[in-house]
């Protein structure tokens, strides 16, 4: 099936080959170095008999005249049981296995099968001989971790087929035949492995639904103020040092979701290492298993070849779509989409395309839109609801949100969690800017109440700015109280201490309770003799709310902490307390 061409030009990771015959856009090709090493590549442009390819490896050592083997297959993934808990590079090479086989360094030209060929899976058939099936009809299932991993009729099946035979329950490897299908005298053998091209959305469902179920992240500022939905999309832009990656890590830990796919795309290796060394030791409170068992890491860090970085986000989203097809709720965290956009820019530059803004290619925006549109909540043919939520970080140059990647992303996402350096600098974590961010979704708490609480933040900020000019003396006490209320809301509700075991994850009932209590304070008609007394009371309130935040749920101590907070309200006046020099 494959053609042989010859290399003509080499420039960075772009290689052009001359070839006679039919060439398929986005097909996989292999550049053969004279020492026999084959470098995986993808065809990205065809002009006459010249094919331009992006090479997924260092091109060092290639020569003009070297052979290129051009296949007919698009860049595809291997899908099946055994993906969970794995760490892959952008081309689905299992990295731990690669380290064992090849050593410490990612020498070019080594490709290993993504799924374990030797492992046996406990198969149970769910379809019967004689039944009619189409692409993605469930044939059987195997347990993978805590999930039923359904095995489906091949995705590339055209039309209606009949099951000619199906294996009885038992243990099989992924390569063993589990069923035979027939149509018009043709037969087709089916095993547990599916292949799917990464650049084509994978989805066999009846309808797409509107995202209406909140995805609980246990971060108050997100769940209450800027909610995200199962099947929704969101982005987290922020300058360096504002805590994008930390926020992604917190989300991947605490989100109430079946499966988390972490796509570390062009970011530090160190951050992936943190996930991969810590997750196997952290327990998922929902299942009691380790977090690693619900996680897949796609890791193409900044020093790995840039072309593979471009494809890695597609690798990740395709796996997400696959698990959605199995009936699960999946969260894809892409960190960072800016690095992916830069990879696009690098290739575009090499292709000598006419550049758009900041030298990004003109198709940047539509590429971003296509990527986020692959998320969504769907009704599967068998009636189950499943979802793929996509959250991407954006690293805008100079922290300026006007740049093309941020702007292109804002148009297509449902929630915008903008991080601010000022908040991070002031140690207000998570550093999501409550005045810049927005969400189009409806969260856990009545939107009207949320908007009312949010109005305090706005008022508080303008009063604070006023105070900078006229000083505390020139501010009316009523305004000063509003300012103190907004600070309280910020400190005890928006901010969360990710190092504290209790405060790190705030489940919905707790959020609702806390929100009610904070609203009570916001609505309370305080009267103070002077500003010092007001400041003192709010200082005490803040301390007591903090104590409440650090006290475990359903303990007597929590009720005590609540009583302490209410004490402040019943007196309504300043509490005696030790001197402070705040």
């Amino acid at each position, binding site marked *: 099936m494959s053609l042989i061409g010859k290399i003509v*030009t080499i420039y960075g990771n772009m290689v052009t080959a001359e070839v006679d015959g039919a060439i398929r856009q986005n097909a996989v090709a292999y550049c053969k170095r004279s020492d026999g090493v084959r470098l995986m590549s993808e065809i990205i442009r065809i002009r006459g008999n010249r094919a331009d390819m992006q090479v997924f490896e260092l091109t060092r050592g290639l020569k003009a005249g070297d052979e290129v083997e051009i296949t007919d297959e698009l860049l595809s993934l291997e899908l099946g049981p055994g993906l969970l808990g794995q760490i892959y590079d952008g081309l689905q090479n299992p990295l731990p296995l690669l380290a064992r086989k090849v050593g410490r360094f990612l020498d070019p030209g080594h490709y290993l099968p993504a799924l374990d060929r030797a492992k046996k899976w406990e198969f149970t058939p769910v379809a019967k001989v004689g039944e009619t099936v189409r692409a993605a009809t469930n044939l059987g299932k195997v347990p993978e971790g805590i999930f039923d991993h359904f095995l489906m009729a091949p995705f590339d099946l055209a039309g209606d087929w009949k099951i000619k035979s199906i294996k009885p329950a038992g243990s099989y490897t992924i390569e063993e035949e589990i069923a035979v299908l027939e149509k018009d005298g043709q037969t087709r053998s089916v095993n547990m492995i599916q292949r799917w091209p990464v650049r084509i959305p994978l989805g066999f469902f009846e309808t797409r639904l509107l995202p209406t179920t909140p995805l609980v992240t246990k971060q108050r500022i997100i769940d209450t103020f800027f909610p995200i939905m199962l099947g929704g999309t969101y982005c987290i832009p922020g300058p360096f040092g504002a805590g994008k990656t930390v926020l992604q890590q917190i989300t991947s830990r605490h989100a109430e979701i079946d499966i988390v796919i972490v796509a570390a795309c062009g970011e530090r290796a160190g951050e992936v290492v943190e996930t991969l060394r810590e997750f196997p030791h952290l327990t998922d409170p929902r299942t009691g298993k380790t977090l690693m068992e619900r996680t897949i890491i796609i890791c193409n860090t900044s020093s790995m070849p840039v072309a593979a970085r471009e494809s890695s986000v597609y690798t990740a989203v395709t796996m997400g779509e696959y698990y959605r097809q199995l009936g699960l709720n999946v969260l894809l965290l892409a960190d960072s989409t800016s690095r992916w956009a830069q990879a696009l820019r690098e290739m575009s530059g090499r292709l000598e395309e006419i550049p758009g803004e900041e030298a990004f290619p003109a198709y940047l925006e539509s590429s971003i839109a296509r990527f986020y549109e692959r998320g969504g909540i769907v009704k599967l043919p068998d009636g189950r609801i499943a979802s793929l939520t996509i959250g991407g970080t954006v690293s805008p140059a100079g922290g300026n949100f006007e740049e093309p990647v941020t702007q292109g992303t804002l148009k297509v996402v449902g929630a915008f969690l903008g991080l601010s350096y000022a908040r991070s600098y002031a140690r207000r974590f998570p550093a999501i800017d409550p005045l810049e961010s927005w969400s189009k979704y409806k969260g856990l708490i009545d939107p009207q109440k949320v908007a009312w609480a949010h109005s305090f933040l706005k008022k508080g900020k303008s009063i604070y700015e006023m105070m900078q000019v006229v000083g505390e003396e020139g501010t009316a006490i009523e305004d000063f109280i509003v300012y103190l209320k907004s600070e309280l809301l910020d400190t005890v509700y928006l901010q969360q201490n990710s190092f504290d075991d209790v405060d790190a994850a705030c489940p919905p009932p707790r959020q609702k309770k806390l929100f009610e209590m904070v609203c009570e304070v916001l609505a309370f008609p305080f009267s103070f003799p002077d500003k010092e007394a007001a400041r003192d009371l709010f200082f005490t309130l803040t301390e007591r709310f903090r104590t409440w935040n650090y006290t475990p749920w359903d303990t007597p101590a929590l009720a005590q902490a609540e009583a302490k907070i209410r004490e402040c309200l019943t007196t309504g006046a300043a509490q005696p307390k030790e001197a402070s020099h705040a």
Partner: protein
Amino acid sequence: MRKYYNRIDRIAGNVATLKATNVAYEELAEIEGKAGKSFAQVIRVDGDDVSLQIFSGTRGVSTGDRVSFLGSSMRFSFSDNLLGRIFTGGGEPRDGRTALTDNLVMVGGPAVNPAVRLMPHRMIPTNIPMIDVFNTLVEGQKLPIFSIPGEPYNELLARIALQAEADVIILGGMGLKYDEYLYFKNRLEEGGAMSRSILFIHTASDPVVECLQTPDIALTVAEKFAVQGKRVLVLLTDMTSFANAMKEIAITMEQIPSNRGFPGDLYSQLAARYEKAVVFEDAGSVTIMAVTTMPGDDVTHPVPDNTGYITEGQFYVKGGVIEPFGSLSRLKQLVNGKTRDDHRAIMDGCIQLYAKCRETREKRAMGFEMSSWDHKLLKYGEAFEARIMDLSLNIPLFDALNMCWNILAESFEPRETGIRSNLTEKYWPKKA
């Protein structure tokens, strides 16, 4: 039976183009003519047209110069004999001693597999309190020093080289003034650290292309030592020169610039170097500290901006000190819980009080009345600046922590510091 080419078609910038066959991408070539002998690297192959980046520049190169290809990409000799040596940015001896030719290794190899990396977990003591106490350097970290020309960042690097605990110290100088090079050399020799150091120095008068190679050679050598189990500290200065050299070459190659003339792959290129910082699972480590001067003190300039996204924190050297605000070692949390139980509390407490001192100074400058608390803060601030922020200090961590306690005790009562009472009871200096 080496094949020689005698016809260069085009010379522009540092790049020469000629017709040649059977040439590999990134292969090394040798060019010889009246201008002398120089190495060159293949940076583009287009059919028979081969573009060479000439290390010593194209000044005086003739189209009739003799070119031959060496059959491999750039390599460098690696052995313990490197210790104590000084090389140019291109890897030629600068110390007048013989060139090394044994055990050649490829420069700029593939990335480390993330699966064999360990989380950084050991601190590197530097005996500089502003680093050890407040922004602890961690083995395997990559940390830039953001500064402005004229600030003593090179003095700081030299001090770190002398005082930091590391098996091997590699200094990569890019675009250094000649006297800066001599300064480093003299400091290391006087401090007795030369025997564990290797210097790769590209001075401002050297060819631009060598500037590009400096970090690659330095980091290749560092990586090899780390694989042998050594703890290597790589000091680079100044990465902005490196980025500018890259810009120069990119423009010569007619690449479309993305931001202020820098090539679109600036992030990837910088990351490829910084990501050499590593802690291996069963071997040594590479730690990188790199000076990045900010043109016009502008942190949104593409070089510091991209660097900030790549590295794990940053030090700002401004006004002769490491600026306590904005400077951040993102990995310090991984180690400073294990040093002494008062480390984190001192780190937070001292900086918060110093922040308040700065606010008080602003108040004073605006003519507000000073309370007794303000006077305490002012007194504390001066002591803190003089005795802790001074970059020429050389005191171990525990002594530095004790010194912080002393300074606090001179100005405050224990409860005024905001530090937990169990710590103040334990460490508060007893009045003599």
